[in-house]
């Protein structure tokens, strides 16, 4: 399978994207926008799409808020979930 696509954002947050012009991305269609148009053409009501978009955005906002308000993990948890059973008797102290 070959999928021809385009990367709209840089490689990382804060990427200055010196390897392309500012306008380059404008020449490429956004698959999300295309699919939205297609759903509308197929008869999905605008209100349904809007409500889905709003609930997804809310979910993402909640995830960001959870990340920003959560405490840093306890270093003692560094080996949690390495294996199904807890790692025990490792020969160093975790501060």
């Amino acid at each position: 399978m070959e999928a021809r696509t385009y990367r709209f954002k840089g490689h990382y947050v804060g990427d200055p994207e010196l390897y392309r012009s500012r306008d380059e991305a404008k020449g490429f269609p956004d698959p999300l926008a295309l699919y939205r148009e297609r759903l509308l053409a197929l008869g999905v009501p605008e209100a349904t799409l809007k409500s889905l978009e709003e609930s997804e955005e809310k979910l993402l906002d909640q995830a960001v808020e959870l990340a920003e308000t959560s405490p840093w993990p306890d270093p003692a948890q560094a080996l949690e979930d390495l294996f199904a059973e807890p790692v025990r008797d490792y020969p160093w102290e975790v501060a």
Partner: protein
Amino acid sequence: MREITFAEATREAMEEEMARDPRVFLMGEDIAKQGGIFGQFKGLPERFGLERVRDTPISEPTLVGAALGAALVGTRPVLDIHFADFLLLAMDELVNQTASLRYMSGGRLRVPVVIRAPDGALRSAGAHHSKSLEALFLHLPGFKVVAPATPKDAKGLLKSAIRSEDPVLYLEHKALYTWKGPVPEGRS
């Protein structure tokens, strides 16, 4: 006590675990039609069919990736890699994915996959078919690495590996396949 070979002991373990748990299946190169290079899979396709004993194309990254995906959706794959040397072709799938996903997901993803690989030198198989890589893999967190020494160990360790909730690298020394030793009868 009865004596069987190391290869027979691993075959018995596979047969018992596949009969016990329908999620367990076997995949690898030349295992169904040929029965394995060392005869260690003989009789399994006849008993369990070609859906559960699957011959695959020759591409180790694809094999490890496929076993990983199958484990993530709820099966318990046992993947045979022809020779341990070929594990090195699939290091991204093995280390960055298979060994890491439980940890990276905070325990939400589970990867109960067994990767079997014959290692060690036997006759004159050459440098690409003779390596012992257990020391290398012991340094990669997320894998359990086991290497049975006797037929009894081979059977018990393979059964434990299949029941493990974590990825297990099961390294079997080629020179041991024909060795005979006592293995208790009966299942557990």
